[in-house]
Each structure stands twice: as C-alpha cells, then as structure tokens.
C-alpha cells in the first residue's frame, strides 16, 4: 500500500500530464482548422488541373501521342514508393498506419520480384522504415523547417521525382499518405503519381475538341510536372490536416485517461487517509479505555 505522500505525488504528476495533453489537444485543434482552411483554398486549382489533364489526355489518346509521362505502368519493373509521414510523433496511429500500408505494398512488390526504391517525406516514417529497408532509400525530404506547407516545397519534391523518372531510375511512382476523411477518421491511402493514366470517367462529358497551343505533346510536358506538383501539394496538405486530427484525437483520449486515473487515485488517497484517521481514533479510544 503506497503511503499518503506517494499517492499525493502521483496525483500531482498525473494532473500535470493532463495539463500537457490538454494543451497539445487545443494546439492541434487550432492547427487543424488552419490546415483545413488552406487545403480548402487549394482545392479549386487541384480540381481544375485534374480536369485539364483529363481533357488533354483524352485528346492525346485520339492522336495517339506517345508522351513519356503517359502509360498504365502495368509491365513496369522499377517502383518508387514515396512515404509521406509527419515530423513529430504523439499523434496516435498516424505514422504507423502509413508505414504499415507501405510495408504491405513493399511485401507485395517484392513477391512479384520488382525493384523497389523508397523516398521518405517526414522524419517519423524514415525512422520506422530504417530498420528493415535502409538499403532501398534513395532520398529524404525534411519538412521540419516548414511551418506551413507551401507549393514551393511540393514543387521541389516533384522536380526531384520527375528528374529521377526522366533518367529512368524508376517507372512507377506511388505516394503513401493519410487521407483526411474527417476529424476523427483518417484513411491510409496510396496514390499513383507516375505514369499518368486516364480515368475515362473524369474526361469532360461535353466532349469538346480543344485547340492546343503549342501542340498536345508540348502542353503535356508542361502540364504534367505541374499537375504532379499539385498532387503532391494536396497530398501533403491532407497529410498535415490528418496529422493534426489524429493528434487531437490521441490527446483527447490521453486527457480523458488521465482524468480517470486522477479519479481513481483520489479515491485511493481518500481511502488511505480515512484508514489512517480510523486507525488513530482506534488507538486513542483503546488507550483511553486502558486507563
């Protein structure tokens, strides 16, 4: 049985832990709102970009243009997996769920004897993959210096990815991240960045034939790097929002657990105190009776 003083110390320490988790939860909530706002603002651009690429793609298909960025990647042998995680921990299963998804994809590709390369974004994913797959790493993007993700960062990453694609380091690029479904639910997902393949459904139903200036191929070469940068940008934004959402939920849980623990410890503390008082009384009474 811990002494009264021990219990008091424990209660105080849990209380200060609760204060910290509560503060972290509120910070995450504020950051989440901001992250959601910026993600919202960037959406029209991303949507329009996707529509234009689809339009371009459908007409490029008509003239059977042989663009290096286009293809379905079905018979590719070399894969690049981009694992986008957070720079910080303490956000529940956020990082490990992305890593888990990436690992299962690695296992799947290995069983098909494909060549795999890994590029990590964010420290946490790198740490978790380091143990098993260090030899596959070809690069790392550090986001710790960035308070908010800017399109510039996304552009830098996409330039790097595209130049690696152009020299034939890999044939298919997939990015892993957490999709922001809602504040309490984030879904680990993967998205194929390269090569660009077209979804028939996304093609404009109006089926207008566009004039291109300069020609399709040149525009594709111009637009696809841009659209990849945009995709990476929106992936990073979604990841940032998911991270804050996940942290908020984790910290909310921690705060609640701490509260429960304090209640339990307080009951223990009160009981011990009562026991001590009763004991003292018994001693006094039995002392008085002896006289």
């Amino acid at each position, binding site marked *: 049985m811990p002494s009264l003083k021990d219990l008091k110390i424990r209660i105080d320490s849990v209380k200060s832990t609760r204060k910290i988790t509560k503060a972290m939860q509120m910070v995450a909530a504020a950051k989440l709102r901001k992250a959601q706002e910026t993600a919202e603002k960037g959406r029209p651009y991303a949507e329009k970009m996707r529509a234009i690429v689809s339009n371009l793609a459908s007409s490029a298909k008509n003239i059977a243009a042989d663009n290096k960025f286009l293809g379905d990647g079905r018979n590719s042998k070399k894969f690049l997996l981009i694992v986008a995680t957070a720079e910080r921990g303490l956000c529940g299963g956020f990082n490990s769920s992305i890593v888990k998804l990436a690992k299962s994809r690695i296992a799947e590709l290995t069983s098909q004897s494909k060549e795999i390369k890994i590029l990590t974004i964010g420290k946490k994913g790198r740490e978790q993959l380091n143990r098993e797959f260090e030899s596959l790493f070809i690069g790392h993007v550090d986001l710790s210096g960035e308070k908010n993700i800017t399109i510039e960062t996304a552009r830098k990453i996409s330039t790097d990815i595209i130049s690696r694609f152009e020299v034939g380091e890999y044939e298919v690029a997939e990015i892993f991240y957490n999709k922001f479904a809602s504040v309490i639910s984030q879904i680990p997902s993967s998205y194929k960045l390269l090569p660009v393949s077209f979804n028939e459904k996304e093609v404009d139903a109006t089926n207008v034939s566009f004039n291109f*200036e*300069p020609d399709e191929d040149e525009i594709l070469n111009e637009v696809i790097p841009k659209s990849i940068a945009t995709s990476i940008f929106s992936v990073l934004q979604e990841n940032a929002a998911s991270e804050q959402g996940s942290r908020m939920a984790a910290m909310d849980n921690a705060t609640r657990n701490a509260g429960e623990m304090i209640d339990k410890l307080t009951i223990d503390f009160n009981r011990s105190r009562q026991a001590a008082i009763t004991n003292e009384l018994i001693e006094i009474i039995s002392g008085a009776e002896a006289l």
Partner: protein
Amino acid sequence: MTSKFELSIISAESKVFEGEVESVLVPGMIGDFLVLSNHAPCISSIRPGFLEFSEGTSKKQRYFVSGGIIEVSNNVVSVLVDSAIAGDKIVKEDITTLIHEIDDKLSAGDIVNKDDLGLRKNDLEEALKQA
C-alpha cells in the same frame, strides 16, 4: 455591347479572381492572344507576363502571372497560374527577385531544363520593362 464570359484566375494557393469579363489578353507561350466571348475551346500554356482583362466600361485590370496554363471552353475561361499578383501591387523588385532566382538556378549547374529557364528569364525581363 459586347457579351461577357466567366473568367477565373486560380493560383495554387488560392482563388485570385473570379467574375464576368468582356475580354482577356493572355500572354500565351507562343505569343499574346485575346479571348472574347464565344472563343473556340482551347488549352494553352502561359509564359510569365501580364494578363489583362476588362470587366466592362471600367478600367482594364492587370495581373502579373508567373507562368501557367489556360483553358477556354464554353465561355468559361480558367487560368491556372503558379502565382498571380495584381497589377497595381506589383513591384519591379518582385520580378527582379524572380529573375535572380533563375540566375541562381542557372549558375548552380546540373539543371536539365536549362533552355526553359533561359526562356523564362527573357519573358521576365520583358515583363519588367512593361511594369
């Protein structure tokens, strides 16, 4: 009375302009072109320069855009740009900074698209004269 059409200028980080306009002068990759209503559907890339449009009788508005793409379809014109700065807010220094950035990239070497950067620099210097 000329008829109007929808124009939206969207940068990666936000919507810059949205509204009904009468005409847009676009700095296309292979030359400036003017879009009026009922323009044939087209997709074109944009070089860095000034995009000019008029909403009607009032004065023309100018935006400095740093390269992007334009889609014209069904009287809806969408301009996707890396960044856009309103003409009255543009400072010559901004463009100069962009030129310096390209210079830095060029001097850093091992750049794949050296020609692209050179062209961009020319476009920017041209825009600087107009600013």
